[in-house]
């Protein structure tokens, strides 16, 4: 469904992507994780034909992304902050156009609005919507026609846990229907829960790639434990050394478990931040 081979892209002499290669299969939820400026948007723009790479090849729906046509775009759903909406039109009219354009019945639209708690606000002018409501508007617009490939940039950002859960359920339902989902998120727990595979991106390079749990397992060290003291201090030591610290106001001792976030820090020496 999606394949990138040795993609490189430079902006004003600065490398945004450096020899990026990966592939995403049909019906897969793929997480593309990285801090701001790591090259996520550039990759999406190359895949959707909005940008042309300096070298390498990108394929989407079996076609070179440079040759993507308007007809191909009908099979792609897109949610990101690079798209807009008609501010002076109501939330419903904004979405009704896409329902008409993709020949989707208004019942489908109404159901999605109800699922995402927007139905009661459907007549609100789009310019008066809160950030979370706009986020849901963009999501509905992207998934309304059940595209073959769905690009989602931070789909749950600004949503409360209940709505985030509803979005996750929708994404799982789409996956069941065979929709390929390309997701960027800064929420590592979300990525672990949702994604079949992830790529950790840092400064235009993929620093880790694979199934989230496999990556976590790879970096987990069963021989190490974390000791927490009464004063709040935590240290990581090998199991053999635990005896040296007992009796020193130890509150807890637990095995060291990696998370995608800690792996990112371990690999880059930087905190994972998404401004």
């Amino acid at each position: 469904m999606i394949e990138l081979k040795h993609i490189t892209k430079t902006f004003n002499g600065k490398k945004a992507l450096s020899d990026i290669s990966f592939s995403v299969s049909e019906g897969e939820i793929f997480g593309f994780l990285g801090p701001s400026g790591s090259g996520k948007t550039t990759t999406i723009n190359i895949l959707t034909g909005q940008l042309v790479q300096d070298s390498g090849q990108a394929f989407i729906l079996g076609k070179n992304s440079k040759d993507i046509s308007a007809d191909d775009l009908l099979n792609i759903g897109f949610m990101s902050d690079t798209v807009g909406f008609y501010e002076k039109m109501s939330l419903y009219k904004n979405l009704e156009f896409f329902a008409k354009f993709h020949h989707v019945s208004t019942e489908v639209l109404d159901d999605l609005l109800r699922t995402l708690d927007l139905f009661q606000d459907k007549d609100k002018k789009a310019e008066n919507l809160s950030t979370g409501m706009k986020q849901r508007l963009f999501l509905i617009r992207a998934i309304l026609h059940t595209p073959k490939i769905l690009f989602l940039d931070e789909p749950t950002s600004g949503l409360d846990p209940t709505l985030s859960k509803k979005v996750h359920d929708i994404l799982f339902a789409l996956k069941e229907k065979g929709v390929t989902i390309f997701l960027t998120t800064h929420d590592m727990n979300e990525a672990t829960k949702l994604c079949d595979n992830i790529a950790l991106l840092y400064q235009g390079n993929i620093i880790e790639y694979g199934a989230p749990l496999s990556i976590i397992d790879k970096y987990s060290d069963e021989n190490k434990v974390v000791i927490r003291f009464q004063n709040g201090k935590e240290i990581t030591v090998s199991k053999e050394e635990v005896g040296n610290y007992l009796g020193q106001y130890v509150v807890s001792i637990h095995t060291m478990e990696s998370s995608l976030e800690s792996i990112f820090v371990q690999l880059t020496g930087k905190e994972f931040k998404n401004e």
Partner: protein
Amino acid sequence: MNRTNRLKSVFWLRRQYLKSNLALLYMCVGTPIGDFALLSLIPKFHGNIFFLSTALNFVYSMTAGAFVSMMIGEEKEKKNLRTLILSGVKMYEYILSIVIFPFLFSVSAFAYFPLFFGVAIPSWPIYLIIAISTSLIFILINLSIGLFAKSQMHASLFSFGAVMVANVLPILADLSNTKLVKYIVDWSFIGANTEYFIKLEQFRITDNSILAMLLWIVGLLILTKFAFAWNRKEHV
């Protein structure tokens, strides 16, 4: 997917957009009507061809022209054009949806204005060919302006340049008889319209200005195609 259904939906979107942007509609369709109302206050207004020509220039510049560039300018500024392109809206669907209302309003204006002004048009077929082609040129110029502009303000600024040329050239042609001025007017985008109102029944369809008009249309069609393709790409 059904082409007619897609076209119907982009026209529907444009109707909703205009309903929610009445200020734009009043400005671009109302200005020529206001101009007509003001001109009608002038004595000896009835039957005066100069007034008709002036009012028509307003129709071309505002209703056919600025209307188009301001709509596209706003859509670019609010990222709606990018959204439509990424949703699979084709170039011809988008452009038709943008030009349909400015074109229809312009046609109504130049069909009725000679009657309002009480001007006897010597040859209606030639008048309509020139009026329709001139409107088309203004629409195409403003399509390119809108598609290359970064914002609505940007588009308005460049569109104002076209308004100035459209209103100054006919006056220049009327006041000066030098060869250079005649040459510039003849080959300008407003040339055929200006020549027509100067020559009236003496105007022939074989006039140089008609050839210039056709060249403008072809050139602007190519530019519009390029401008739309340019918008499909991200420019950093």
